[in-house]
């Protein structure tokens, strides 16, 4: 998973927001090389502390301890983003409407908790460097969106790489098949991901629901200021 972001020269300053004690205690121990960590149980703790960090790794489901009235879900993403922090969502959530809602709310990336650690580290570094990080399901949504309403600025080569990524093909395989450098393939993909987020943010939730075959109200509900998880 090395690439432009993997060469990040400086250890990152990271914050983890998760209601699970094991995650808060364990994750910094599992991925110590990526940077230094501070951890919080919820968004209130985070925003009270206002740490100086490069990225917030944010869980969507934050009421595990039984506390009520917490901001969580897409609402938490929006709140943290609007507070000026870059956010990468770290979740078990797989519903596409929810994950799209996170990107619409301003998250730079979404990564599943079930992913292997190298994938998580790569996602953290890419999100911190400003890239859009998407799960495989989100890549599929990007391809579907482009098929229904082609992204106007996508080049043929970028569209080819979108198709390859949607099929699960790795960068090295894409690079070999297209006779390009791996770094070039990664740069093409970064451009595709950026254009996809632009596409999302320039369309209304209702348009996106129609384009992507979602139920009416799916995205609208998730984009309420304090939507649940």
């Amino acid at each position, binding site marked *: 998973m090395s690439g432009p972001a993997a060469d990040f020269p400086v250890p990152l300053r990271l914050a983890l927001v998760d209601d699970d004690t094991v995650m808060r205690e364990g994750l910094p121990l599992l991925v110590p090389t990526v940077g230094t960590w501070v951890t919080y149980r919820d968004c209130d703790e985070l925003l009270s502390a206002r740490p100086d960090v490069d990225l917030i790794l944010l869980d969507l489901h934050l009421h595990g301890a039984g506390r009520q009235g917490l901001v969580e879900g897409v609402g938490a993403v929006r709140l943290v983003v609007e507070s000026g922090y870059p956010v990468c969502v770290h979740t078990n959530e797989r519903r596409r409407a929810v994950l799209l809602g996170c990107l619409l709310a301003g998250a730079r990336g979404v990564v599943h908790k*079930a992913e*292997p650690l190298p*994938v998580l580290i790569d996602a953290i570094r890419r999100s911190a460097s400003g890239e859009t990080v998407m*799960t*495989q*399901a989100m*890549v*599929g949504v990007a*391809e*579907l969106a482009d*098929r229904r309403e082609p992204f106007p600025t996508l080049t043929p080569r970028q569209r080819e790489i979108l*198709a390859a990524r*949607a*099929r*699960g*093909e*790795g960068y*090295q*395989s894409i690079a*070999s098949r297209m006779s390009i450098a791996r770094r070039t393939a990664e740069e093409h993909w970064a451009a595709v991901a950026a254009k996809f987020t632009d596409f999302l943010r320039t369309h209304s939730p209702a348009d996106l629901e129609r384009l992507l*075959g979602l139920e009416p109200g799916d995205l609208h509900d998730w984009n309420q200021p304090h939507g649940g998880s």
Partner: protein
Amino acid sequence: MVVHPVSRLVRRWRAGGPMLPTTAAGAEWAIVLALSGVRVGVLVLMIPSLPAGVALSERPWLYSSAAVLVLIETVALVAWALRRGRWPGVGPSTADLGLCCALLLLEFAYVPMDHRLGSWVGWPTSLVLTSVAAAATVIRRRWVLLVATVAVMASFLVATSPVPERQTWNLVSSALTFLIWATLARLLSSYMRRMAVAADAARTAAASSARDEQFERTRLLLHDSASVLLLLSEVPVAEPVTGALRRQAGRESVRIRRFLSGEVPPDSGDVDGPVERQSDTVSLIGIVLHAGGQFTDLLVDYLLDLVDGVSVDAPRARAVERALTAVLHNVRLHAEATRVVIHGDVVGDEWELTIQDDGRGFDPAQVHRGFGLEIQVERSLGVHGVRAEVRSGPGEGTAVVMRAPRVGVR
């Protein structure tokens, strides 16, 4: 109990079947029976003329001795042939031919002059015909056979040339009879032997093909089952894997029982799969989700929006489901993958399924694809009109791409 070959032939005939099998051995038996029949027939035809021959011969004792000698030799030849199932080889046959020629050349000593042509008193001429025919079936080299036949013809001309009122053209025509017999016997025996050898080869090829087909069917039936059993036998196996394997083992056992009862071919779909519940066409997404649902231990991303509404006819659906299952078994057993993507798309008039893992991959130029990919996927799908392509590289994972025309699209 050892059964005499002739008794075996008679039993076959009495049982209402063909007496001689269409094998190489059967062809030899046909030659033996034909030559024995002709030879014994000549002896039978000689018998009524023998008393007259003895009475007319200037040397009755020599005439009688020649007849007895021929009788003994014929019995020996025929008995040997009926016991072995083939006519005696080049040596005995050449000796027989030499004996007959000698009897022909010595006719001046024991056969009256005016009985050497056109009379059964002068039986050596007929006897030599049978000997020439027999020699023609065993002497392989053409030039040897030609020399022997010419020698017989010369012996005949020498023996008959002193006959009074002989007509040269009649003698030449009679001499040519030996050449014609030799040629026909050679042609017929060769043709029968070649036919029999070809029939044996065809039977061997058919048997081999049947064995191969049965082997392939058994491999198709048991390949996936073997991988399930292998994983179940490994201790310890993580609980989610064990659960999935047990469910698959149950399905495999039902499939094997149905195959053993002759209900379904080994490449049939799952017993409770979408294909079994419907008869006409099946949703491609349904096929994929059902096949993938057996592999809950694998992290599979399904990207199937683009094939929403695509249907597949039932036989093709079964093949696709079996192939998908085989691919996922391969991933589980060999790929060392952390995730699998199953992606569907429609390209022109075709649907396309891509199964991509992020495992170790392999070099297709160096590594054989294995039974799963080559037979269960590529060949089995090809039979149902689905093209399959396997792409891989070391460290690049493996992709299997299936493509086929959409139902109803022309």
